[in-house]
């Protein structure tokens, strides 16, 4: 297990390293002159010079890369053009909201998706199976912003059941009322994302439960006279969950994409909405920093998922 963990972490570090190198190359090697790209005429000449120095843009590319890495490991992602504050500080305020949104979504999606997939696979070919399948495909195909708008329009504007944006109501800042307020703000964005990602888990689980149910050990379990309920929900489900959880790790990257759109629609103050705002303001340091931090979060969550998989599936530890 220790060795597996070690290998997994090394892989994570390599992935992160390549990610930031890629970011560096994309931002620096674009046809546009980086000096003009990073410059903003709203800044004073002194600020511009300071900025050139901050980014080390007067130095040759390899040196720029080294200082980029150096700054990164000091936790320095540069200054935001618009807010004229360190990017890291801004992200620190935003990231918890995105993580909250993603973790809650991931948990609910797995909690609903696995049983639905198991049931759908067990009753393969039935009306319920077709229904679950159809809904799942629509879930994959729906465009997030529109689903968000629709939910917002119906439950926010018309029925006034949930707040129409943000992550909390200013003024309520502690205790139970605060927690309830945050949950209330979370409901619609989470429903949007759950609907979007549910299908993947349902279809994965369905596929693997169909495979698992044809295995000999299931026949044995049935032959032993175990209750069908136990065969399905204990023996089969436990094994069918492994590929689903593995795919949950792979899904995180695309879920971040969904979060960007969802946060934009719901004006949810996470990293995603920050990206949207930075695009409008051409705030490149923010874009770059946001991407790096999101990638890092995904890589870490991926490692956690893999460890969970190793815990579920003892075979992995031996590989």
């Amino acid at each position: 297990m220790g060795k597996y963990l070690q290998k997994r972490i090394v892989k994570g570090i390599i992935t992160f390293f390549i990610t930031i190198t890629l970011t560096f190359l994309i931002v620096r090697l674009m046809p546009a002159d980086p000096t003009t790209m990073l410059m903003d005429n709203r800044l004073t000449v002194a600020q511009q010079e300071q900025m050139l120095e901050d980014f080390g843009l007067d130095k040759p590319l390899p040196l720029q890369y080294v200082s980029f890495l150096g700054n990164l490991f000091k936790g320095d992602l540069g200054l935001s053009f618009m807010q004229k504050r360190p990017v890291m500080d801004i992200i620190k305020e935003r990231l918890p909201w995105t993580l909250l949104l993603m973790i809650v979504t991931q948990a609910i999606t797995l909690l609903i998706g696995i049983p639905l997939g198991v049931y759908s696979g067990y009753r393969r070919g039935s009306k319920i199976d077709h229904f679950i399948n159809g809904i799942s495909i629509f879930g994959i195909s729906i465009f997030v912003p529109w689903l968000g708008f629709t939910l917002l329009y119906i439950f926010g504007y018309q029925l006034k059941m949930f707040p129409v944006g943000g992550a909390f109501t200013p003024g309520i800042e502690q205790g139970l009322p605060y927690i309830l307020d945050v949950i209330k703000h979370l409901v619609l964005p989470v429903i949007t994302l759950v609907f979007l990602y549910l299908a993947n888990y349902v279809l994965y689980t369905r596929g693997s439960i169909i495979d698992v149910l044809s295995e000999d050990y299931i026949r044995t379990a049935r032959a032993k006279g175990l209750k069908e309920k136990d065969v399905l929900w204990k023996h089969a489900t436990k094994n069918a969950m492994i590929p689903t959880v593995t795919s949950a790790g792979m899904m995180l990257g695309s879920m971040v994409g969904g979060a960007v759109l969802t946060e934009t629609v719901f004006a949810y103050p996470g990293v995603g909405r920050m990206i949207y705002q930075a695009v409008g303001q051409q705030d490149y340091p923010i874009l770059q920093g946001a991407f790096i931090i999101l990638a890092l979060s995904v890589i870490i969550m991926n490692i956690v998922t893999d460890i969970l998989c190793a815990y579920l599936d003892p075979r992995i530890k031996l590989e």
Partner: protein
Amino acid sequence: MEKLLEVRGLKKYFALNKGLFSKGSTIIKAVDDVSFDLKGGETLGVVGESGSGKSTVGRSILRLIEPTAGEVNYKGENILSLKGESLRSFRKNAQMIFQDPYASLNPRMRVGDAIIEPILSHNLMSRGDAIDKAVELLEKVGLDKDYFDRFPHQFSGGQRQRIGIARALGLEPEVIVADEPVSALDVSVQAQIINLFKDLQEEFGFAYLFIAHDLSVVKYLSDRIAVMYLGEIVELCKKEELFENPMHPYTKALISAIPKPDPRIKEKRIILKGDIPSHSNPPSGCKFSSRCYCVMDICKEKHPELIDYNGHKVRCHLFSKGGENNGEISSKENC
């Protein structure tokens, strides 16, 4: 007849990695120090149970797998040192007929294309001539020329094996390695294919290395027979000699296993105990000692050499100390 192929000290070892908890790896000796010659136009039968290394020998001399050590000389040239384009052009000299006719033809390729593809790949003739040749070959192997445009799935196993043979013949090879070419076929078809092999050899004069897992299949075709056990040749001699005067206890067991056409002949069948041992943990001394019904003390200690008695080679302690069966003669039956 001139020597076509000279195989000397051929070895193929695999490293078997163990799990996380045990350090190092086990060496599997799939083929261990195999030497033989193949003369032009001759048929050498290679017989052994699965795991004896017979297929590995066949694949090694065609460079389908890379041997660990040894030499394979084709007309005096060591083919193990060939690389790239020279290896590719050597391949037209030695061809293989595969065991599974269902797997050895690309399902997406028409029969005719499968036959002309190698001819064109070696630039042996123009496309038009190649098509004529493919039609001719289809008829040679007993198939209708209308089959040219069909796909492999439209044929039976025996017909596919004929297609595979036609494909190999297109290159006019001098050596054909046939790797259990009939074992996947129905018994009724086996004899037809074996006859085809014989007829084609008479017409084209190539040499066969004919690999099989029992003696009954190679009996009819072979001039000489090599018996393999756990990666080694244990007996090698002329076919008649092998059947009249088998020396190795393993060969005797194999011969006794051939079904007799006359039920009145009551020869006692020698039943070997146990299974073929694992490659990763072969018995010490003679590799056959764990199943041998003539086993002696020396067999468990010393690995026997392959000794040549007037062209009859055998690897057994019963015959060591030079010449007649003058080791300790066992009192047991059949030894």
